[in-house]
């Protein structure tokens, strides 16, 4: 029997992880991406390998996903991760009022934490706000977004996946009865147009899923929710530093190479294709970031950027929507065969999102092939380019 052919639209975190999972489970895979690998939301992520502690109080489903995937990614893709842990620090009495809930939430989600005295915390990270009242260690990490994605893409490629980068999907191919049988593509590197036919089309375009589903006359409840991040030109900690409070703006400061990155804000938009970096958001990042690490104020801005989260649900305020993900089989939701959409989620849960999506695809084809991505070390990111 010839292999089933899956066409994955999008080479963000979800797309590359799905391509890897599909290839491991024996599918022929073609990835179509309009830019380079992770040029949209995924590349512009903060870079926090979440321990899940951030969501342990208000969004425990996401928190449990995060801690499990955090532990898996450390093992399968070590060369994209700084695994130095993180701290949640409480500074004000309001932060301290969150302490009990935080301890209970982390326990409920299986996130290992340890409380430190202010002196212990300052010894580990001398640049923390000296007014801190408490600190908790958490198993956070930071990752390089491009190399994380390339490791999945390289592994997919070694199992036969074909990548068409700089190639737009300009339309979906149908069988005349509204069912999807492939895509019409435009390779912008060579200015050539062509068609790709497949057994299933996977829409893994994150905040852009609506662009693709609208080609089939389908809408998906998704709220593109951008946030601004600012990088500063000096490394001031070894660990990820989080504010001990419910998730808010500018309450995570991450070390990465020789930088610190502060993020983020949250607002909603209609079209994620281009969102400017707003000056007032940049100002807010230095205000909030220097609450955690005062020395940031004396540090030069290195870069400012924006990424658009794909939050599931329509027009609810950004921080209250769950950070978990959802895969839709459009046969079930819209009576359109041949198209699956996956959206929502977080960078930390990319592998799990792929597992659930490919499970759904296997079920559609009555295949019983288990997922092995959690046990399969990924190739070096360079193998995406080097055979």
């Amino acid at each position, binding site marked *: 029997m010839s292999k089933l052919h899956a066409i994955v639209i999008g080479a963000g975190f979800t797309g590359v992880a799905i391509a890897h999972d599909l290839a491991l489970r024996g599918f022929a895979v073609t990835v179509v991406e309009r*830019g*380079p690998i*992770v*040029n949209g939301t995924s*590349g*512009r992520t903060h*870079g926090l390998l979440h321990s899940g502690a951030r969501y342990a109080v208000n969004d425990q489903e996401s928190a449990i996903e995060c801690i499990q995937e955090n532990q898996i990614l450390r093992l399968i893709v*070590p*060369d*994209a*991760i*700084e*695994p*130095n*842990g993180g701290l949640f620090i409480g500074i004000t009495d309001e932060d301290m009022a969150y302490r009990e809930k935080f301890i209970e939430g982390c326990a409920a989600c299986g996130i290992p934490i340890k409380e430190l005295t202010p002196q212990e915390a300052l*010894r*580990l990270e*001398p*640049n923390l706000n000296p007014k801190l009242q408490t600190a908790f260690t958490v198993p956070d990490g*930071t990752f*390089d*977004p*491009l*190399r994380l994605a390339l490791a999945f893409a390289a592994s997919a490629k070694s199992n036969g996946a074909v990548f068409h980068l*700089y190639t*737009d999907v300009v339309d979906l191919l149908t069988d005349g009865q509204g069912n999807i049988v492939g895509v019409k593509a435009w390779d*912008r*590197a*060579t*200015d*050539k147009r062509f068609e790709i036919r497949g057994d299933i089309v996977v829409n893994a375009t994150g905040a852009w899923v609506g662009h693709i589903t609208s080609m089939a006359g389908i809408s998906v409840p998704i709220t593109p929710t951008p946030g601004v*991040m600012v*990088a500063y030109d*000096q*490394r*001031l*900690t*070894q660990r990820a530093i989080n504010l001990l409070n419910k998730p808010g703006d500018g309450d995570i400061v991450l*070390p*990465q*190479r*020789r*930088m610190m*990155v502060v993020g983020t804000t949250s607002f909603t938009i209609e079209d994620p*294709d*281009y969102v400017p*970096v707003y*000056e007032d958001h*940049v100002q807010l990042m230095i205000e909030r970031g220097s609450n955690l690490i005062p*020395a940031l104020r004396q*540090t030069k801005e*290195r*870069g*400012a*950027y924006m990424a658009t989260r794909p939050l599931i649900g329509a027009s609810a305020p950004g921080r209250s929507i769950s950070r978990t993900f959802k895969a839709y089989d459009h046969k079930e939701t819209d009576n359109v065969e041949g198209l699956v959409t996956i959206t929502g989620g977080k960078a930390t849960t990319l592998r799990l999102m792929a597992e659930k999506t490919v499970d759904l695809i296997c079920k559609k084809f009555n295949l019983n092939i288990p997922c092995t991505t959690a046990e399969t070390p990924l190739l*070096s*990111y*360079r193998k995406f*380019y*080097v055979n």
Partner: protein
Amino acid sequence: MTEEKWTVKFVIFRKKGDQPPRYDSYVLEVDPDEYVIDGVERIWAFHDRSLIFAHACHHSTCGACGMRVNDVEKLTCITKIRDVTTNGGSLKIEPLRNFPIIGDLVVDMTRMYAAMDRVHAKAVHPLSAAPLEGEGIRPPKDVPRNNGDEYLRLADCIECGLCISACPVAGTAENYLGPAVLAAAQLQGLKHNPDLLDLVDCADGLWRCHSAYECTAVCPSNVDPGWRIMDLRRQVVGERIKRWFVKA
């Protein structure tokens, strides 16, 4: 950033498949404190959807967005427009040199990745092997270890290719390992990695370098390949002398 607005003409190198290259101009209103990549992305978003360019992280951790800006290699996500042109001025944006062009501003950097693989360049280092000289944190020897483990950090070299594009030798010697690669070998040290010796001590290795130091001038990520190549020569000479005595 400010409320200031500048008018800047972006002159962009274009090439599709076998078609001859050309330059397209786009006049944009910009905030001078925006970064060059923001202007390029807006050209794609609002003026010409056929444009292709590489980018990912937009804050200098991934190394994807290297381009030549007014004839100088820049990581465009951390290059403020203010620093490379003037109000009413222009920005010539071209792909990196010394790599094959895939299309428009995108090049194929396989040459560099393959060479980085050959010297086993590490993506993540223990802090002691890649110290943070002059940074705002206490030196690692004073900071307690992380539950008994060494701290790890992502390497300084982001494999952006700027040094290979700027290198006057890389353009004429296609098998030359190149600055980033030799710097990665130096960082590991020949003493602990003797298998690197033959790879770097040859005509396409560190003796090809003409000490132009263009690599160091354009490096956006504190690697200083020029200095590292000179240091690697010192290491090679040391190893040669050592071997001479061992043979005798």
